[in-house]
């Protein structure tokens, strides 16, 4: 049986003692993330603007007609991406360098500064910086490059065709507005949750028939919604953010199913 085993504990001790070899290995391996759409060399505000631009292009308002039924899927906001914690950690290696400098300048007086700065703070801070950056880059790339409106539109069409297979579609307008989606803090300090919050509006001849919130969230979740996918950011980022991509695909299908359920309950003719 092919098994993947991970053992971890008292990382602090481990990392600080095993330092450089591990540091270089992890940094080289994990920062190499294929990101064909969002350019890697962009940083700070420039990168954020580019994320917004890429996300807007990849998630346009989708308008489709299926018989007499008009379907609109649009995004009200960009994807929620967790705080880029690695920038804060990036401050620790210079602090460690300060300690190290102090220790080198006056070894007898600041022998402990040599150890604290050179052996603990610099390697540990640098390792954590690259590790957190890898996590953030993976998740950011997966969310920014998501085509959520297109995917929801596609899933809706498949399910509408299946729901009205032997009859004509009703003359109504279905609007799905994605109010929020992405990875946010959860009730547990160790976890983040992938959530989607959207509005569903059903209308006929500009008269609203039904309006409902569809929430796959940690709090105030819709009754028919599954629990949101919650785990550590590291787990979300593993294998080129495989879990983020899988969850996105599932949420589009679940959202479409929840909308179809509501439409069928209205008994439209």
């Amino acid at each position, binding site marked *: *049986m092919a098994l993947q085993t991970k*053992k971890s504990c008292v990382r602090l001790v481990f990392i600080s003692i095993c330092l450089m070899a591990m540091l270089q290995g992890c940094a080289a391996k994990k920062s190499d993330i294929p990101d064909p759409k969002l350019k890697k060399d962009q940083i700070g505000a420039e990168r954020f603007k580019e994320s917004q631009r890429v996300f807007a292009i990849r998630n346009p308002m989708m308008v489709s007609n299926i018989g007499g039924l008009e379907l609109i899927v649009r995004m009200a906001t960009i994807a929620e991406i967790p705080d880029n914690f690695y920038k804060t950690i990036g401050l620790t290696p210079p602090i460690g360098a300060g300690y190290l400098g102090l220790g080198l300048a006056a070894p007898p007086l600041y022998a402990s500064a040599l150890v604290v700065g050179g052996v603990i703070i610099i390697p540990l801070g640098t390792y954590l910086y690259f590790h957190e950056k890898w996590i953030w880059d993976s998740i950011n790339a997966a969310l920014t490059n998501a085509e959520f409106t297109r995917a929801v539109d596609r899933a809706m069409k498949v399910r509408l065709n299946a729901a009205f297979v032997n009859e004509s579609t009703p003359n109504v307008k279905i609007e799905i507005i994605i109010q929020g989606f992405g990875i946010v803090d959860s009730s547990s300090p160790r976890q983040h949750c992938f959530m989607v919050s959207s509005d569903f509006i059903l209308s006929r001849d500009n008269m609203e028939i039904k309006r409902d919130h569809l929430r796959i969230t940690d709090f105030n979740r819709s009754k028919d919604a599954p629990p*949101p*996918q*919650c785990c550590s950011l590291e787990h979300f980022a593993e294998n080129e953010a495989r879990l983020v991509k*899988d969850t996105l695909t599932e949420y589009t299908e*679940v959202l479409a199913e929840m909308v179809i359920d509501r439409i069928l309950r209205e008994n439209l003719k």
Partner: protein
Amino acid sequence: MRNLFIVLLSVTICSCTYHTQSKDPVAPVTYEATQYREANSVGNLRRLAVMPVELKPYKGKYSCEKDQEAAALNYENACIKFLTEKKGYEIVVVRDSEEKWRSELLSDARYSSIKDLCQMWHKEIAKGNTVSVIQKIGRALNVDGVLVVQIKERKPWGVADALLNLALLDIPLFYNIASPEVSAWIYETATGRLIWREERSIVITGNESVNTDSLISIFEELENALPRQLIK
């Protein structure tokens, strides 16, 4: 002294959390679905049977067997609540709140009692041969997988223990860190294989709510079950 430090460090590194996940595809037996996620995701086993929690207390923790069974049931309920509400799994409980075996769950006429199946499980696990018994239990209960939880309760340290630990250069402390108290295993019905394993060194104290919170943290990294909307 240096060698001792290296030994202690190795123990620490190889301790505390043991996580294993199969890379092979997992196959549910109770439903068919379009693959929307990786084939090896544990969440594909959306209907799980929970075996009675195996509680190993330290001597003198419980005054009678009934108290121990009540504590085990309390831990079991915490796991079930978390897996159902937060992870979306459909849980099949083999014992009810009065600790009666729910033999009405058996979908296979060859087995008359769940208790017999559980006893069979205990015999086979001692021999290290779980594949066939997991398949029998899983098929009899019509579940995709079987969850087994084991908890070892450790006596809290007193002043004497702390002093002894100092005298023995923290060896008892490292030993405690290295020995997991809470273990959870998920087996697949289709093949009887171990699919997911998490073992942690968690301080199980006298406070029940702290204990259950610590216990459910073992499942935090477990992927959600496939949503019911996506099964045919």
